[in-house]
């Protein structure tokens, strides 16, 4: 296992390097010079040259990369063009809201998907299976912004059960925070629920055809024991890995969901920064997301190796 971990980390190094180069290049591929952007419309050529020098933009690209990555490794991702706030601070301020939304979305997704997928597999071909299978395709086909809009329309505009947007920090009011969390969490979690349901169902079907299930049954174990004690435990191994990978889907979805529900998280910051051409913020967020996603994938691989001893990673 240790050997596998070392190998896996070694493989991550070149990928992390390429990712950092790609993110660094973002600001240099933009059609507008960052110095001109910071100085705004009423800039003089001298001021642009001075600022380019101050920012190090007149130095060779490899030099700039080394400076940028060494700062980034120390948590310094530069300053926002619009607000002059340090990028790391701006991201960290918004992170709790995104983490709360993401956790809530994943939680309801797992809590619904595992029973639904299991029942669908156990009753293969039944109406509930047809419904669950239909949901797994529909859930990944309906855009989450459409789901959000439908929820706002029905539950906010018509029934007035939930507010259509906004955020109250947990520290201010827990009930209000949770009340505002419901619609964005459902919106964000629908795609992952569909994917998890599908994986649970197919994984359960796969496990149910294994010899050890037949053996357990032949030894007199009840179906409850067989399903809960043997089948579900093993069927959930691939589901665990899928849930881990869904960190990416959740981060993607957060951009849209936070925009629809005016949820002040990292996703909304990213979209606002794109329209404000605040490239250091965009760079910081993309870097943070890419590394979170890489670490989540690493955790998934390790969890998989640990959970399923049949898998050899020699």
């Amino acid at each position, binding site marked *: 296992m240790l050997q596998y971990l070392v190998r896996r980390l070694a493989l991550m190094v070149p990928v992390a390097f390429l990712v950092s180069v790609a993110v660094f290049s*973002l600001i240099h591929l933009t059609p507008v010079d960052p110095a001109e952007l910071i100085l705004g419309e009423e800039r003089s050529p001298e001021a642009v040259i001075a600022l380019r020098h101050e920012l190090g933009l007149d130095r060779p690209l490899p030099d700039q990369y080394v400076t940028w990555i060494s700062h980034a490794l120390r948590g310094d991702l530069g300053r926002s063009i619009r607000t002059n706030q340090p990028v790391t601070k701006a991201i960290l301020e918004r992170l709790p809201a995104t983490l709360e939304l993401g956790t809530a979305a994943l939680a309801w997704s797992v809590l619904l998907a595992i029973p639904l997928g299991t029942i669908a597999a156990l009753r293969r071909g039944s109406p509930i299976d047809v419904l669950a299978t239909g949901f797994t395709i*529909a859930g990944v086909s309906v855009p989450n912004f459409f789901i959000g809009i439908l929820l706002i*329309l029905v539950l906010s505009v018509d029934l007035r059960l939930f507010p259509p947007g906004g955020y109250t920090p947990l520290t201010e009011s827990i009930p209000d925070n949770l009340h505002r969390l419901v619609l964005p969490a459902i919106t964000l979690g629908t795609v992952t629920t569909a994917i998890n349901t599908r994986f649970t169902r197919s994984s359960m079907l796969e496990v149910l055809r294994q010899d050890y299930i037949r053996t357990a049954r032949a030894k007199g174990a009840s179906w409850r024991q067989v*399903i809960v004690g043997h089948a579900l435990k093993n069927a959930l191994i691939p589901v665990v890995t899928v849930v881990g990978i869904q960190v990416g889907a959740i981060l993607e979805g957060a*951009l849209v969901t936070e925009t629809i529900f005016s949820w002040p998280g990292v996703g909304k910051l990213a979209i606002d920064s794109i329209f404000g051409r605040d490239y250091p913020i965009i760079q910081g967020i993309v870097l943070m997301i890419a590394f979170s*996603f890489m670490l989540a994938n690493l955790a998934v691989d390790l969890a998989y190796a640990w959970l399923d001893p049949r898998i050899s990673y020699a």
Partner: protein
Amino acid sequence: MSTVYSPSLPEDVAETPVSQPTSLRALLRTYPRVAVASGLLILLVLVSVLAPWIALHDPTATDASNALLGPSAAHPLGTDELGRDLFARVIWGSRVSLPIAFVAVAVGLTVGGAIGLTAGYRGGLWDLLLMRVIDAILAFPALILAIAIVAVLGPGLRNAMIAIGIVQLPVYARLMRAQVLSLKGLDFVAAARALGASPMRLIARHILPNLLNPLIVQISLSAAAAMLAEATLSFLGLGAQPPTPDWGFMMNTGAQFLNNDPWLALGPGLAISIAVFAFNWLGDALRDALDPRLRG
């Protein structure tokens, strides 16, 4: 728990047929889901092709005196805030979304496929370097990468198409590489090589035809993902720009009128959902039909 007892289940699963249909007719007869999903997709393509005849109004013609009208015989889905016929815009929207899906898939398939073929066939250093680039692309969640690319290149349909094409590369590269690696060790490929077949001939005549089944399934699923990504980019204001009748952008505008004119968001939202569903459904049905081992 006894209510979920199904004693015959393992046997049902074990009896899953593993043979593949040998002709298109057999495929459609054996797997009616493929036929229905294909039918839905053909309908969508027909709507797109026949848009000028189906939509009775110009999708970009504004008429301030008829803004925000409810659905009626003259305007089946009502009109938007500029008085444009929403039904016409939804119908014409298919002419934006469908081609984008096809172009993005074509970019992903040709570039990603070439990378995967080269990495898998040549192996060694080529494989190592090319697959690290693919791993680097995969290190970004797809939509985040697409958004970052559009943020750099600037909003617009063309840039959205490029971005979606790039994020599609890894799936084809990995699929092609895995298939080539498994195929090139098989006897029939070794036999062709022993008979003097050139690498190009080996790939074209022996490897590619055997890749077709998983590729067809992937193309259908990627087209769905591409449409969804394009709609999302446009919804965020990063894809199509006004006055292009784009479903995602129409929803962006429609979301501002939810209180009084919900159809402005519902019409295009349903259109996107149906189109993406059709591709996903077809991909799913084809996977069942062409590779029964993967049936879930």
